[in-house]
């Protein structure tokens, strides 16, 4: 399934990058060291963190993209970094719980 196919169900919009990538699973965590240790390549990382380190860790782990929940917005410097490091960033007004529920159905 492509990330693009999940956008309407997740009420998500693309902040950076192209969603035409395959999604293989999902990892939910707001603790960056945990994601570094446990997320798998190709997974969609769901978090409410918008810190620039999210982009570094996402790039390092080759995730399909990062879904930022609760309507939180990364600042322009973080978006620019995502573009530079080719990390797909998505944003949704849903809570992490709601997004997880929809993803569970989809994936």
């Amino acid at each position: 399934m492509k990330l693009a196919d999940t956008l309407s169900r997740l009420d998500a919009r693309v902040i950076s990058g192209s969603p035409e990538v395959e999604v293989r699973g999902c990892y939910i965590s707001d603790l960056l060291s945990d994601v570094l240790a446990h997320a798998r390549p190709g997974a969609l990382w769901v978090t409410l963190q918008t810190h620039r380190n999210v982009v570094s860790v996402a790039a390092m782990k080759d995730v399909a993209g990062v879904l930022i929940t609760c309507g939180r917005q990364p600042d322009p410097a973080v978006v620019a970094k995502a573009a530079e490091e080719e990390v797909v960033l998505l944003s949704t007004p849903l809570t992490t719980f709601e997004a997880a529920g929809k993803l569970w159905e989809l994936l």
Partner: protein
Amino acid sequence: MHEELSLHILDLGMNSLAAGATSISIRVSEDRARDRFALLVRDNGRGMGRAAFVRALSGRGSTKTGRRRAVGLGLAFLRQAAEACEGRFRAASLPGHGTVVAARMRLSHVDRPPLGDLAATVRALALAAPGARLRVACRAAEETFAFDSQTDLNLPSPA
């Protein structure tokens, strides 16, 4: 961010060793009266030039590494932790001289990671570089603790 501040300290100490440090100095303090937690790691390694330093602070790491290596994330992680806890992060590096990293945060901040097992961190660093001099000084309430690998482990001084 790491789960414990002592893991951040371990990360920084390992960076120091990778930079060829023969001397690492760690200071940790908890000050309840000022609601402040502070840590500092200083080394005499090869240091970083401006470009490398900026890359390290922004979480990019070495240009020599591939996309999937986590080298160099330690500084960016600690900076994030300090910022999340109404704290302050400072770092300076001088090629040929070394690097110093200092972070301060509000002791009672709800997002502040616990210090955790500092003894394990010191143990790991002492093992990682038996030839280096490792000094640790901690201060909490009325108590202090000091460790110096040169005197406490009967090691020969580094050249």
